[in-house]
Structure formats: C-alpha cells, structure tokens
C-alpha cells in the first residue's frame, strides 16, 4: 500500500480508501453473523439472521405453516388422496398407506429459500418418475403438482421433464425417517434437485401430467 505524501488530511480519519475499507470490513462482519442461516457450520454464529436452519419442527424452518395455508384439517383427513391425472393412460389414486406401500427412495436435498436460508435434510418417499411410469405418461411429460392449499400463490408448481425423471425427485412422506410434520407438508411434499424452496410444494394432493 502506497502512502499519499500530499495528504496529511488522510490522518484525519476516513478518507475514500479507508471509507471503502470500513464498508468492506462491516460487510464482512455482517456476513459472518448472518451467513449461518444458509451455511450450516456457522449456524451458531447467525445472531442477526431472521431464520436459523436448525430451528423449527423436526429441526428446520417453515415458510408457511399448515394453519396459514388453511390445510390443517384437509391434510389430516382420512379422505386424503393423491391422484395422478391428465395425459395418462391410467389415472391413479392413493391413500397414505398405499403411498407407503410403493417402492420408497431417499435423497439428501436442500430446501433453498429465496428468503436467504437453506437447510439440507434426508427425504424419503415415492419417485415422481415411478408414478409417471405406473400411470403410463409420455416420456417427455411435463408435470404440475397441486397442493391442498386453496388460496394464495405457489399452491402449484411445475416439474420439467428432466426434473420429473431425476431419481432424486420425490414425493416425500418422511424426513429423517419420521413422517413429515404438518408444517413441513404432511402427508406428502415435493422435493427435488435444482428447485427454489417455494416450489418444493407441500401438502401435494394432485399430480397433473401435461
């Protein structure tokens, strides 16, 4: 670093370079105390973060609760069914026990929320591609999953053909070997790679093949 001989004013305090240094230093400090909301090893340092990736039911955060989504009753109802409809050769319908009787697969995948937090968990459930095969959907099928949630945005999300055929794209029944908590989408949620958290749709009740 060169000194500026003309500037005794520099010793007065924050000149431009030092100001930028202060901006950089303060940014680094704030990053240190917030990055833990997405960087697991620093989670205990996330003092200023609006979320903690280890705080919530089953040990991770919730964006919208079952109560806020208005699905507290419908998600617990014995009448709950998952249906697979649309461009299929055979429409399917499953209750929770029948879903559990299908081949189960696990994937370790993150929920990465645009709010800034993320959390990686081990999910277990039915592969979307297995359901598509059972229903006789075309290989290039696009899929839309629909939630029990009736109102507001993000009650549905689209799954493109690549994601639909990825072995890690699941309709999950379990997280870390426990049934999903109501706020995490009981009985069934979508979880797949390369998707924003808000499109890991919870309380899934319908798969529409298009």
């Amino acid at each position, binding site marked *: 670093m060169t000194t500026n001989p003309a500037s005794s004013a520099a010793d007065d305090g924050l000149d431009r370079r030092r100001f930028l240094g202060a901006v950089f230093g303060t940014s680094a400090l704030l990053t240190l105390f917030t990055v833990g909301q997405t960087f697991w090893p620093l989670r205990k340092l996330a003092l200023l973060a609006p979320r903690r990736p280890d705080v*919530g039911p089953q040990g991770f955060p919730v964006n919208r609760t079952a*109560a806020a989504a208005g699905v507290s009753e419908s998600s617990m109802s014995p009448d709950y069914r998952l249906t697979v409809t649309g461009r299929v050769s055979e429409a399917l319908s499953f209750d929770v026990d029948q879903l559990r009787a299908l081949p189960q697969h696990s994937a370790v995948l993150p929920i990465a929320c645009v709010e800034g937090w993320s959390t990686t968990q081990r999910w277990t459930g039915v592969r979307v591609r297995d359901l598509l095969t059972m229903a006789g959907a075309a290989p290039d099928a696009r899929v839309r999953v629909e939630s029990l949630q009736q109102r507001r945005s993000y009650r549905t999300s689209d799954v493109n053909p690549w994601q639909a055929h990825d072995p890690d794209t699941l309709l999950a029944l379990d997280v870390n070997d426990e049934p999903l908590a109501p706020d995490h989408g009981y009985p069934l949620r979508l979880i797949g790679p390369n998707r924003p958290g808000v499109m890991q749709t919870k309380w899934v009740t319908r798969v529409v093949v298009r």
Partner: protein
Amino acid sequence: MSSSAEVEPSTEASDAPSGVVFWVGAAIGIGIMAFGVRGLLENSRATQPMEFSKWFVGADLLHDLVIAPVAILVGAIVARLVPRPWRLPVQAGLFATAIVLAVGWAPLRGYGRAVAVGNDTVLPLDYSTAVATVVGVVWLVVGVWLGTIALRRWRGDATAGDGRDPRRVSAPRRTPPTR
C-alpha cells in the same frame, strides 16, 4: 442509496457524460431498469407498486433528510472531540455500529412476525442480545486498534529524534481490520 443518475459511470476525467462506454452503459442500465419497471407493473398483485414507490422514494428521503444530516453532525462532533490519531478507529467504529443497527432494525422491531403468526421459525432469536453482541465485537476491535495506536505512539515517543515525522510514526497508514 444512490439515485439512478449517479449510477452511470463516467470514465472521462470531466463529469460531463460522454463517450462510447457511457452510452453503452446507459443503454444497458436503462434497459435493465425498464425490465424491472415492467415486471413491477405486470406483477402488481405481488409487487404492490404503491408500496414499492413508498419505499423507493422514502428511502431517498430518509437518507437525505435524516441519515445524512445525522452523519454530518456526528462527524463534526467526532472531528472536534477526538484528536487526530484516535479519530479513524472511532469513526470506523461509529460507521460499523450504524450499519449494524440499520441491519438489526427489522429483527429488533420484530417486523415480519405479524404476518407469520404461529410460525415460531420466523425471527426465532433474541435480537437485542444479538445486536448488542455484534456492536460489542465492533468496539472490541476498535479498542484493540486504539491500543495498538497508543502503543505505537508510546514507542514513537521513545524513539523520537530519529528524523521521522513523529505524527506519521504515531499514526501509520493502515487499512481498517476486515473483521
């Protein structure tokens, strides 16, 4: 917060906007802004343009009418009260404290809890303690910094007469700590 007019970089020595870089930059920048405004209006149900405008204009007013005058006032007081070699650490500490308070304001006030009733994972921490802790870290760093300056001054006094400008010895140029 900069107004859009300040964002355009001028690569010329003069302040008058000119040159290929300026106009290309302006075209790209205006294009991006137009895209943003289009999105703002097209998705008005989600973006709520009136709320956005309130924040867009409000942030400028808050800066120009409150934050800048307070910063100038505090700066003037510090320049008067704090002698030269100690001034930089104190200014840097105040700067960092202000930013930490600004960032901590929303969680401190619990903004967001009201729209997430029943969701205990929103703002789950004790943010008063958190802000106090981070500000404490800032002033710990400032304290160490001041201590270092005091030590150097004391050593500088001890070696006075070696031909160097004692003030420069006592207040050596250094970058602020990045922690």
